[in-house]
């Protein structure tokens, strides 16, 4: 008989040690003014507001609140810079955009940490997704600057910029959304007034250093910080030729109504309630990964999240088992920890919204399952949540929650799945899992969504057009199609 090996017994528990990314390489100023015409200027409102780390509620910095006079100043600066930028040779603009991309890559770690601090998302995501994709976006559109005529597909016409663009971006992917907006606009020769979200302005403000180093002329990009009123002032300003907005459907509708009859161009990238269809002939383990990526990526604060899971009844039990097991390994914790899968909910306001839906779901009779999680005293936290016993008329099944909350319903046939999936006023994303090729194409044709992820979910690429059907907005970002909103024909 052999003696037992000293390590033959399995450990009862086993967990990674904390592995916090060092934040000291990021320098955050105490206070940020507005960036207008290539200079940092004090706001006419004389007001500043704090921005905080949602995982600790620590105030990171103070940011200027731009009022209508500041918006006017920024729009004028953009207007003044327009001729020079628009007439610059495409190849020269390309060099500047390429440089932005390269500098972002060089300073990637700094941006990732700042993004995680200001937003609450896990460093794993800001490091592997937000920042590299932002750099890739600038690189992709840099290549278009001297090839814009190819994008028009209108023989006999020349591409021209639209003019001064007002761009309003959300807090869920602060740097990435800035890149999605700025890169195509600048590539086409437009000048920009960019308004970052009031709760996540820091990466846009740090981006100024990159733009300046890359050689973006003064006034070509102006950054005005502030909340809804600031955005409304930008929308209302007569000197703006085009508005691009990413955010809630509610605000998007208000902007569309405001611009009615003005002749200004508009693109909207709004909310969603993505249906995620799992068929019995799907690779279920990968489907479960897709479900996780679909709804828990960025704590579910993603407009294209796969928040409505529709599972073929014959595999519902199996999928639930696999999913719950998988969720028990999801690590909710400090965003700067390299092993964290889910970070903090972005703000107190958002936390309240998520909570109210968790309550509403239970009030309406749905059954809530939550992964075990002990929340720290400070900060805003929500573990992965699943709702079963969901009916299509419940609020949680119809409205965008924008949090780590998944509703689960079953279906019997592909036809029923499509009907359920399309029964929404949103139409941004959808997912389909099945190993059958012809079924994938039949379903992806019938799903009313701008992006259909088949046997994958939440993939993004600068070359790939993204945008919604129905009340999820109009216009596309990414790819050749993403240029069109920023191009005029001559």
């Amino acid at each position, binding site marked *: 008989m*052999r003696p037992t090996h000293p390590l*033959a017994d*399995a450990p009862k528990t086993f967990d990674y*040690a904390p592995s916090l990314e060092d934040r000291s390489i990021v320098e955050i100023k105490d206070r940020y003014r507005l960036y207008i015409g290539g200079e940092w200027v004090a706001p006419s409102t004389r007001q500043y507001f704090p921005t905080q780390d949602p995982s600790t509620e620590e105030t990171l910095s103070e940011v200027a609140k731009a009022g209508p006079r500041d918006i006017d100043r920024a729009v004028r600066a953009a207007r003044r810079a327009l001729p020079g930028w628009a007439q610059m040779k495409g190849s020269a603009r390309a060099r500047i955009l390429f440089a932005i991309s390269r500098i972002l890559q060089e300073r990637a770690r700094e941006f990732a940490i700042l993004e995680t601090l200001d937003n609450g998302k896990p460093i794993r995501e800001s490091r592997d997704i937000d920042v590299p994709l932002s750099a890739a976006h600038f690189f992709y559109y840099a290549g278009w600057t001297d090839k814009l005529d190819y994008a028009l597909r209108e023989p006999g016409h020349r591409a021209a910029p639209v003019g001064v663009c007002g761009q309003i971006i959300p807090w869920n992917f602060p740097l990435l959304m800035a890149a999605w907006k700025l890169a195509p606009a600048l590539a086409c020769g437009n000048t920009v007034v960019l308004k970052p979200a009031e709760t996540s302005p820091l990466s846009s403000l740090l981006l100024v250093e990159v733009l300046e180093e890359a050689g973006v002329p003064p006034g070509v990009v102006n950054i005005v910080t502030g909340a809804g009123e600031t955005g409304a002032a930008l929308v209302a300003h007569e000197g703006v030729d085009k508005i691009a907005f990413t955010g809630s459907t509610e605000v998007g509708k208000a902007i569309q109504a405001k611009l009615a009859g003005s002749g200004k161009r508009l693109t909207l990238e709004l909310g969603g309630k993505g249906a995620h269809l799992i068929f019995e002939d799907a690779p279920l383990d990968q489907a479960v990964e897709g479900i996780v990526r679909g709804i828990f990526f960025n704590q579910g604060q993603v407009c294209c999240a796969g928040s409505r899971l529709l599972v073929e009844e014959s595999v519902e039990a199996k999928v639930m088992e696999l999913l719950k097991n998988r969720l028990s390994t999801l690590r909710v914790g400090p965003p700067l920890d390299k092993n964290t899968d889910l970070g903090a909910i972005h703000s107190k306001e958002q936390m309240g919204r998520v909570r109210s839906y968790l309550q509403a779901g239970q009030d309406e009779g749905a059954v809530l399952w939550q992964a075990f999680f002990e929340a720290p005293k400070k900060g805003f936290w929500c573990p992965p949540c699943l709702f079963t016993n969901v009916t299509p008329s419940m609020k949680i099944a119809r409205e965008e929650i924008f949090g780590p909350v998944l509703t689960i319903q079953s279906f019997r046939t592909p036809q029923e799945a499509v009907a359920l999936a399309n029964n929404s006023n949103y139409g941004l994303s959808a997912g389909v899992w099945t190993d059958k090729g012809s079924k994938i194409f039949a379903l992806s044709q019938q799903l009313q969504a701008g992006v259909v992820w088949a046997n*994958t979910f939440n993939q993004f690429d600068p070359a790939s057009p993204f945008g919604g059907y129905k009340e999820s907005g109009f216009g596309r970002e990414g790819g050749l199609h993403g240029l069109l909103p920023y191009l005029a024909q001559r």
Partner: protein
Amino acid sequence: MTRKTSILLNPSERDLLMPPCLLVDAVGLEARAAELRKRSWKKEVKLEAIERAISMTDLTTLEGADTPGRVERLCQKALRPDPNPDIPPVAAVCVYPNLVATAARVLEGSPVEVASVASGFPAGQVPLPLRLEDTKMAAENGADEIDVVISRSAFLSGRLEQVFEEVQAFKEAAGPARLKVILETGELGTFDRIAKAGWLACEAGADFIKTSTGKVKINATPATALCMLHVVRDFEAHSGRVVGVKVAGGIRKSKEALHYLALVLETLGPSRLTNRLFRFGASSLLNDLIRQWKKQKTGRYMGPDDVCLD
């Protein structure tokens, strides 16, 4: 003797629902496997993980030039990988059948087991009676564990029943020795097939399913390991029997070993983090694990002479 059959050959009503592991999307599998490479191991946990990895290593030599002397030295290394007594012995020493007796002599009375490859390793292209004889001999010479290969020839030409029956016969031939069934995943072409072969081996009685012989171009990869972890997970749910997984071939660095441990931990949980259920088939990996262990202890990167040759 009545033979239990495979659900792949004759699905019973209860098993009409195929286990999820048998249908794989390669890109999703690889993405998940790659994601866990980025897990960060720090401090005490890293030390513990390295020690576990050492304890899971089947220190292997499978060369035509292997001699009793070489195997003896390897066994000494297995028993005491480093002068530092905090570093545990490995799980087993893995040799060709001819050298089993030598290894068994050196390792007698120690916690380190003797493993032997058999069944016409690595190609399995000799007649079945010879493969069975090979296996029996290894067992008789004192192997605690026997690593056999499936017939890829039979599997790839669709003779699943033959594969199933042969593994059953190996199991019988191995007697009380633990049976590790090598799928040679690098020759199977797709993850669906790897899963299918793994499942067949489990049903036929394998105690471990193992990726590779180390003798072909493509050896263990994290995605392959993940695929096989799904197989043993589903097989446990199906049969109640727990089967281990062994990854082999080309694993040289601590970082890779820790990646595999993360795969095990986050797919099957900590209860699988034992050499009873997970193994590395490797040789040079051991010294890298020791190097990293020492680095973690001292804060200094080790030089080439800070670890012992085998």
